[in-house]
């Protein structure tokens, strides 16, 4: 290439580079590296140890043994499978309900502000405060079975938290109940950004409400959907509080997730090295999932 490229000379002191900004970002940089990346690195280091986690206790370097054990551990794979199923089910249901509610509340319905508050309230409630309530509701003598009995569906009554096949749906239902409010709010905000003229034009062309939802509103909310999917993947990987508080990850690991398994191996069994190895795996999967979603979003934008 022979074209002359004329570079604009930078004026001294005006260069936008690492050097000029460094004094300003250094405190934050130290904090980020000291608190986050150091911790990640330290977790990676601990994952090569056989250690009980107490700082004064001796440790033994076992290299990659913890990772080998992890790949051979059926509970790890069970937890991973649960995470995948959990994400697909909760994300699909939350998206369907959140999107529908957002569309409904964009129409002129009576008492809309009240409905918005009601839908969003579960999102701000701490799982720890709600866990005893759900444990009571889904107990063998709980209110859910009482309701089934009183609507003629007594044959379906069962100890929901004591059976592997039903414990996971309960955990999913609680999660959907809690997080659909957030999905709704984000879709509601995204729909508010849609140019009314586009909808007006579609209406003039004779599009039905359903057609407008399917062909105009849903595609224009795709950015929000992908952002929610990214949050959903990360949220599913970090799932801990609901299964731990409601089912203790049981029965028989039926509601085991990576988070609960890390807690068990680290806090209860004192295998800090092994727990750190699973944490590293979780981190890799979370970053991988996030990047995948980001690439997907980027392709859509292009």
């Amino acid at each position, binding site marked *: 290439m022979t074209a002359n490229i004329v570079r604009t000379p930078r004026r001294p002191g005006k260069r936008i*580079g*690492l*050097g000029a900004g*460094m004094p300003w970002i*250094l405190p934050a*940089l*130290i904090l980020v*590296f*000291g608190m986050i990346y*150091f911790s990640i690195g330290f977790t990676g280091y601990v994952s090569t140890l056989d250690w*009980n*986690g*107490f*700082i*004064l*206790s001796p440790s033994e370097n076992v290299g990659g043994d913890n990772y080998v054990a992890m790949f051979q551990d059926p509970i790890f794979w069970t937890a991973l499978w649960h995470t995948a199923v959990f994400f697909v089910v909760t994300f699909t249901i939350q998206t369907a309900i959140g999107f529908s509610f957002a569309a409904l509340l964009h129409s002129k319905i009576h008492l809309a502000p009240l409905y918005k508050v009601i839908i969003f309230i579960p999102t701000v409630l701490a799982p720890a405060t709600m866990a005893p309530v759900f*444990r009571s509701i*889904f*107990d*063998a*003598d709980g209110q859910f079975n009482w309701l089934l009995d009183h609507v003629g569906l007594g044959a379906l009554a*069962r*100890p*929901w*938290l*004591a*059976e*592997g096949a039903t*414990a996971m749906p309960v955990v999913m239902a609680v999660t959907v109940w809690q997080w659909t409010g957030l999905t709704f709010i984000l879709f509601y905000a995204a729909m508010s950004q849609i140019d009314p003229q586009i909808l007006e034009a579609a209406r003039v062309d004779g599009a039905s409400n359903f057609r407008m939802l399917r062909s105009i509103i849903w595609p224009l909310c795709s950015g929000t959907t992908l952002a929610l999917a990214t949050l959903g993947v990360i949220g599913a990987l970090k799932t801990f509080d609901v299964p731990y508080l409601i*089912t*203790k990850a*049981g*029965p*028989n*690991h039926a509601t085991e997730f990576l988070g609960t398994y890390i807690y*068990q191996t680290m*806090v*209860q*069994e*004192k295998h800090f090295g092994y727990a750190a190895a699973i944490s590293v795996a979780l981190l890799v999967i979370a970053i991988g999932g996030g990047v995948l979603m980001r690439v997907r979003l980027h392709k859509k934008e292009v």
Partner: protein
Amino acid sequence: MSTQRFGWRRAGAIAIAGVALTTLVACSGGGSAPADQGSATEGNITWWGWTPDKTNADKLIAAFNEEYPDITVEFVSKPIDTYDSVIGPAITSTDGPDVFNVAPGSANGGVDTFQAGAVDLRPAVEEALGSDWESKLATSGVDGLTVDDKVVGLSAGAVYSGSVWINQDIFDANGLTAPTNLDEWIAVCDALQAAGQGCFVQGAGQWAFDMDTFEAIMENVEPGAYVKASKGEMDYSDPAFVTGMEIWKKLFDEGIMQEGAIGLQQYPDANNAFMSGKYAMVMMGTWYTQYAVKDIMIASMEAAGVSNPVPFTMIPIQFPDVADTGNVGNMFGDADYGLAVSAKSEQQAAATTFALWLATAEGGQQAVANTLNNIPSLKGVQPQWDNIDLVNADAQLDALKELTDVAGASTQPRFASVSADLNSAFRDALIGVASGDVQITDALENLQAVVDAQ
């Protein structure tokens, strides 16, 4: 590359390395114990533990201050589930507790884990009780809290399991007597359930209590087998364990365990269900004795959601002869908690005074005995029953005295011989067998595999 940029990069790298090193040094904790151990008769010390509860801790501290008025003790209660998470960093700091609870075996606060942060109390206890001090204290309190000859903690008292508690008022109202074998147990539950009354409640999702029930079954099938196997001295494939597991499964299949038992926790679910009178029987140990006291029972019933509670007569009974062997009445237990003195404490002398007083002095042990939460560690100390306001002394006193005597004489450990890995394996085995998801032979093979790997 400009010199300026290189400089900033280098400075940044140095800063990051500095932070990393500082964090490492801060985390490493270690180091020698403070040279000055302070006064043995005055000071302000802090005691961290998951037990006793605040009411009992206040009683113990008040009794201590009658003898040592110049040592102020502050008890900080920490939840048992997160105890290990908070105590580790705390005892590597001089700002942490001076005295902290430790427990035997795989329980939270395990001595094996935290012994490195505690001083050796052997010289102190030898000075207090003499060279034959071990013979003066309960075996469960000495063996379980000693690591490689280092006395990590002094047991304030022990808890023993193997007993079943019944609501005598419900039994009387239904014209029933406490079951003594499996057939009677099934019959009692059938009768109570037919009357619309819950029979036996267990939070089988909290497997530590499943282990209690299973150990009680095994003590009935073949005394000592449970502990031997956990130490690797007996194989889990032994027919005794097959029998034990079959009986465990029967408790679920024959309707003794309530429906959905493995979806519940012993605390708070089963405890609340028993305290609120929904069920007539529960598998609890000696720590439940305190609820036989009128005001404590009322408080416990209120906590279980009962409005205007009327205390009921609860009585401990022997675990039924479920295997028809006649081996009944065996109990098993460990130190409930031991008092360890932090190696980082700047008031080790005052902290040691408190630990020794509570765990080895007659005054301290009498105070422990009177809480009815623990069986005292010092032999010969009994609760002062005449000063204790039981709900129904005529019906309860003999049974409570017998429970205390039998438990105090027991030498069988509860969790002290069970490693953390074996503990988890028991969860998978017992809940798996109960739900039918795991075959008995597979469950026992898995238990043996864990012991073999240790």
